């Protein structure tokens, strides 16, 4: 085994960019002149690089432990949730029975179980060179809905070419936290439905969900009927299921 510490110190300084310009020049000339030294330096560099790759994999393994903990916790929580749901169903059935099964179903859970943030690759791709849009989308996608809403609102008023996509995402940013009485969501989504074919179907679906949330069931059902009868609508099957649940 060849342990030429002096050479290794030199290699290390060279590959870690710790040599002065003059030292570097002299060292490179030496490498050109001496093939054995060149070979040795190549092997040294490869070993150093291998350690860097292995270091990242070790780091991944370490973070994997947090992942395991997180996944086992969420599984446990969802197990508890299922138990709670099962218990809830029993209680609901008993209450329903007592009220002769005539009480209308609680609608809010239908909104919660169907609402998920919308994002598409296509929209992002088209607008890839627009920093304000990118910033608003980044906030929206990371779940920072209040600042996302403000960012989209700003775009609505400052850039007419992005007005309707911004109206759509502004409405979606408001939906998780808002209650009945918020007219902006309905107004924005209707504007998108009437004026912007690219997001027509999406706006229709989210407006139906919003109407469920604010318990305007007739409006919700009318929209869901339209979606369910449209064979090309991306939420046709979901709309049918939802109509069944509502009926």
């Amino acid at each position, binding site marked *: 085994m060849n342990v030429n510490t002096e050479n290794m110190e030199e290699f290390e300084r060279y590959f870690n960019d710790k040599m002065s310009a003059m030292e570097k020049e002299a060292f490179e000339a030496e490498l050109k002149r001496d093939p054995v030294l060149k070979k040795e330096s190549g092997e040294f560099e490869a070993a150093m690089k291998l350690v860097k790759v292995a270091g990242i994999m070790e780091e991944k393994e370490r973070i994997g432990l947090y*992942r395991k903990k997180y996944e086992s916790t969420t599984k446990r929580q969802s197990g508890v949730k299922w138990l709670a749901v099962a218990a809830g169903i029993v209680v609901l059935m008993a209450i329903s029975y007592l009220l002769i099964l005539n009480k209308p179903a609680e609608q809010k859970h239908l909104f919660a179980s169907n609402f998920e943030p919308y994002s598409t690759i296509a929209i992002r791709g088209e607008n890839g060179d627009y920093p304000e849009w990118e910033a608003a989308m980044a906030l929206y996608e990371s779940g920072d809905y209040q600042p996302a809403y403000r960012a989209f609102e700003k775009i609505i008023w400052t850039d007419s070419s992005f007005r309707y996509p911004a109206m759509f995402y502004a409405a979606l940013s408001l939906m998780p936290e808002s209650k009945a009485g918020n007219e902006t969501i309905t107004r924005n989504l209707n504007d998108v439905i009437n004026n912007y074919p690219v997001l027509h179907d999406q706006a229709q679906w989210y407006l139906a969900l919003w109407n469920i949330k604010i318990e305007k069931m007739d409006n919700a059902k009318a929209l869901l009927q339209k979606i369910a009868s449209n064979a090309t609508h991306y939420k046709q099957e979901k709309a049918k299921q939802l109509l069944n649940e509502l009926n």
Partner: protein
Amino acid sequence: MLLTTGYNNEKMVSAVLKGGKEADRAFRFLYQSAMPAVRQFVLNNSGNEEDAGDVFQDGLVVFHQHIKDNRFRGESSFKTYLFSICKFIWYNKLKKRKRMSIVNDAEIPDLQDDFTIRVLDEDKSILAQKLLEQVGKPCKEILIKFYFEKVPMKQIAIDFGYKNEQIARNKKFKCLNRLKELLKGNMEIKGLIENIF
């Protein structure tokens, strides 16, 4: 209880850099607060639960490196920054898997050339880790501390109980020589290194 307390950018960076229990809490907090949005994004874009888990794990590795390399400057919130990394990683995977042409409009500059992402993206990177294990545990740890974590030799000498810095340095070179010997006949890993760098 720190897990329910918020972190601002400064606190997050300091906790991650300190390591130990503080970093442990910070990473657990990141899983609880940032993972759901990434999960939803991956599920909305043709992925499944497993994909979401993989993407977030890789994203955290990259995020950690960016903090260590001082590339995360706090221009956006750490959650937004981490989300952008994960989004980039998922687009890359989608491109490979579906051979789709996607405009990967990363908000963070230079992700396209990010060394950590290249390593994580390469299936054979695990072979490098396995080869390094063959030099023995103390050697592996010294090499990773110095060449990857960039811990100064003086600190390594203290941590590993060497009498002085020079002894630690000699030990490190011996370990690296051992690794060089193992690497000599291994064309697969040599190819991997060429691919990544």
